[in-house]
């Protein structure tokens, strides 16, 4: 792998980031979402991305912030990146010039790379799920009803992490799930888009053993949590968003060409090639339908 091209790619990422933060147009559309959760549940989310390698899972730490009205589910990596972006953005606001700000934004460079860039908001009152994701710079979302695919309750109990848990099953977007939930935490929530049981989901697995999500921590919270969002996200459909994410992963340049960022064609191709290779190792996804 040619290192200079790789560096170019990262430099590009940096330029994009600085552009996003400093550009008048984009910085105007930045919105920092504040949320005060009562509790934070931490889950380990394991997904077999390549079904030919059945012992290799990707590991993602998910955080579920909830109170009695709504919840946000986000990967720890995205939250970390958001905190850096917010700090950078606020420095920009506080700093007296773009120059000063760019000098002070040291951190964009330490951002984590993750494919788990979504932010999932559940509004208990409206019974709705809003799924946000970033396609390069653009925040795009879709809405869904909570608890699509009805849970069937199963008369089985177990104790997990000291919680009395009960079992429920449902088929959702191509997978048969088994969930363990506890009524002792009376929120109808869970990791990702899952929820709708009479208690928090402690563990969730699919029948093929390709998805495994389990609680690792649960603690009360008094601190506000902040997410880096757009004040003007664009609405679309679930499947369209998935297509856009794949398309933008393979070739992000069409999302940036209008920003007048010039990249050598050779580097773009090299990127596409690397990404194609990378995608080959991903033949499985959570939502199969």
């Amino acid at each position, binding site marked *: 792998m040619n290192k200079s091209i790789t560096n170019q790619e990262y430099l590009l990422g940096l330029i994009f980031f600085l552009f996003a933060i400093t550009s008048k147009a984009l910085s105007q559309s930045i919105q920092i979402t504040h949320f005060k959760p009562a509790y934070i549940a931490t889950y380990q989310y394991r997904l077999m991305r390549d079904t030919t390698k059945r012992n290799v899972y990707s590991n993602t730490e998910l955080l579920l912030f909830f109170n*009695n009205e709504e919840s946000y589910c986000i990967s720890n990596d995205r939250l970390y990146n958001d905190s850096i972006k917010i700090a950078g953005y606020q420095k920009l606001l506080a700093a007296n010039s773009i120059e000063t700000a760019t000098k002070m934004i040291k951190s964009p460079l330490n951002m984590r790379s993750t494919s788990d860039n979504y932010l999932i908001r559940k509004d208990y009152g409206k019974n709705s799920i809003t799924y946000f994701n970033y396609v390069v710079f653009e925040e795009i979302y879709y809405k869904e009803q909570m608890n699509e695919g009805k849970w069937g309750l199963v008369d089985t109990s177990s104790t997990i992490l000291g919680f009395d848990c009960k079992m429920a099953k449902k088929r959702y977007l191509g997978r048969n799930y088994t969930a363990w939930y506890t009524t002792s935490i009376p929120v109808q929530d869970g990791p990702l888009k899952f929820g709708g049981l009479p208690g928090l989901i402690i563990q969730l697995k699919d029948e093929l053993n390709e998805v495994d999500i389990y609680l*690792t921590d649960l603690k009360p919270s008094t601190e506000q949590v902040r997410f880096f969002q757009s004040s003007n996200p664009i609405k679309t459909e679930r499947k369209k968003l998935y297509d856009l994410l794949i398309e933008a992963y393979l070739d992000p340049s069409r999302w940036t060409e209008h920003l007048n960022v010039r990249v050598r064609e050779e580097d773009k191709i090299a990127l596409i090639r690397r990404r194609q290779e990378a995608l080959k190792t991903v033949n499985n996804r959570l939502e199969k339908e």
Partner: protein
Amino acid sequence: MQRNHTIKRKQVFEKLQQATFPYLFVPLIFIGIFFSNTLLNAQTTISGRITTNSGQPVASASVTLSDSLNGNILAFAISNAKGDYKIELASTLKVAVLQVRAFNYAFESRPIPNQTAEYNFTLTPKPTELPNVVVNPSPIRQKGDTLNYVVSAFADQKDRSIADVLSKMPGIEVQADGRVMYQGKAIQKYYIEGMDLLEGKYNLANNNLPHKSVSSVQILENHQPIRILDSLVPTDRASLNIKLKNNITVTGSGRAGIGAEPFLWDAAMTPMLFKKQTQFIGSWQTNNTGNDVSRQLKTLTIENLMDQLDAQPAAASFLQVTEAAVPPVGSNRYLDNNVHLLTGNLLTKINKDLEIRVNASYLNDVQNRQGDATTLFYTPSGEVALVENIRNRYFVNELETRLTVQQNTPKGYFKNMLTLNLHDNQTAGILFNGTDSIAQRLTRPMQQVNNQLRWITPIGKQLITIYSNIQYNQMPDVLQVTPGPFASLLHGNEAYPELRQSVSQTHFNTHHYLEGTKGWRKWTFTPRAGIQTMHQQLESEAETGKPVSPENAQNNRNANTTKAYMQANAIFKAKGLELTFNLPFSSHHFYLNDMLKDSSNRQSFLTFDPGMYANIIFNAYWRLTGGGGYQNSFSNFNQIFNGLIVENYRSIRINNLPIAQTRAAYGSLGLFYRDPIKAIFTHIDYRYQYARQPYLPVNRINPDGSREMVALLQPNDVGSHTLNYKFSKYVTDLKTTFGAGLQAGISQSKQVLDGTLTRSINRYLRPNIKMNTRLGGYMAWDYELNFNMARNALKGQPTNKLFFLSQSLQLHIYPAKNQYIGLAGEHYYNKALNQKTNIFYPDLTYRYTFTKKRIDLQLTATNLLNERTYISTRFTDFYFYQSIFQIRPRQVVASVKFQF
């Protein structure tokens, strides 16, 4: 279903009650009871409302029906926003337990018969107490960007080397050739105790290091191994570090290439050294292939780019050697160079936050440029043609050094840069103008010292910036012209052998300011107070060999300006609206002292230059921007001198101007549309500028082609309109982005040519089309077509038209993973004054990579059709200019790139 049934049954009952046939009624009651009982057993509906003591509904409460208190949950419901719930139960149980749980309310439960009924609950607030979660310590712990795997947790009896254990760690994979992958991507570095001992050849360690001596394996996510780049190049790749149970690296890269013809070389060597506290990158580069390596000395980091914006560039020289204009193509097409570049960069950390950096570079280059220039000066009294054959040689000797001390902590930022630049540049040229051969030599030494300090520190909750920039430079320039020009003016109409024009400039400039920020509701105010001083000393003399030069051929004057300013920037931000106001008040003091005439000129001005900008976002798709303002500017001192200066062999400049204030007004409006999902981006913007200059530039063209620039004190109005349109659309099926754009402009100004006042109007129209296709990772092409149509009209003169077209097509092919073929073609078409030029440059590149050894072999052939000249044309208000420039001939270079 159930509800419908119930309703129907009710209706039937009502009808029956009204019926006058009681004998039919009795059996029906039995039937009814019978049916309702069976229905109850099959499905019961439990509903109700959950409220607080004060009657407020409780939403999102879990209501469950179980067979016993801690038993199996049979059915459940979640209360809605009104607090209502409804559970449907299909069970034969006689009694069930109805339980209500809500966040921060006390738990309620009551046994109920399995019958359709309503149960309301009133909940008492009570904080929900969660049991502590006891999680088994995971063998994998994440801390920041580092993932730690405890080796003993993964090791088995049969395992020997660390490689055996690595393959079992989740997310890590070891391929057949020994390459370690993390999350499907090859790791970037393999460290042992933080040291990259083996570079890419880590198999040696991986397969032989016993796992028993390893305590843990760390995955460093987003790890940038080269610390000097850490602040520059982010990465999404991971590196691996072996932490042993119980500290210097040298690396670099090189390039070597040869080609023809003439004999061409291109070589480079870039060694690097990394230690814990010290890093070094050096480079030596040389070539004569037209590769402008001096560009590598240009700012490389974004941070430095910003610093350079603050530093004031060295003043321009008054003197020139006549040049043929360079063509509007890439410099590698025409640069005839012989360059050597030596650079060293050292970074040392004194402690965690404080670092010292030394950057030094030396550039030595000899460049040749050759061309024919035809200049046609058109004046109301006729055209004056000038034909010149020009051969110039540029000798570049530049030493630049910089010492930086930087402290960057979360608490503050301090950076001081001391820069010392020494240049000794010369240009020698021979020019033939049809009758005479003229030799010119310009020496341009320069010494510059600059110190820039920026200190950002929080005071209370605010950030205060203290900025200081102090700069001193000396530029003693000398232009020698043989034989001596302007004999009538400078030498009593007698021919003389040589003119020696010296212009010595000394500058001392300072700029200091204090800046803060204050937020108030939706406003952000950025007040700044500063003082800027400039001192310039100008000494010049045109020596013709006579013992005493004419008095008007000398200058000796001092210029001082002081600008004290207070400015307030205010930004208002609300959803969908951003307003920026810029309100600077400045006090300017100018002092000019002519030592020769012993006269001085002192003036003061107070200025207010308000400006505002608005950005209105209607929705995710549409945005409108607009702004406008008023601005004052003052004459550049370089335009104010009493004595004459011979700029070049055919131009004398005399600028006897007062200190002049130019007032300008400007405005802009833009409309933007974007639909990222459909991949449509388009915008249109319009700009207007109007300026009133206090004088008119006057060109006096002498019969021999020489010209004098003087200024006539008559107000000059300059106005311009510019329109810019852009559109782009990505078509997914064709994997192609289509783009189109248009720039149009019109500007007008007044000119005095040979004592006649004329109005000059310039118009241009520049449409362009772009197409860009990428077919997976195998092929891509780019096509671009640009037009430039310009017209220039002087009142009473025929209109001049120019038509320029450039198109380029680039084809990139990747026949295999390690091979690249690039085909490129550029075409230029130029038409002006009935002269047409057509130039086509095809190029070819082939590259083969030995992936394992990290060696690239590359063959580049440029200018395949062996074009020798480039003809370019341009015109301004008062002249038409065409140059025929010698460009690099066809060349082939074979090179090898390697890393060590």
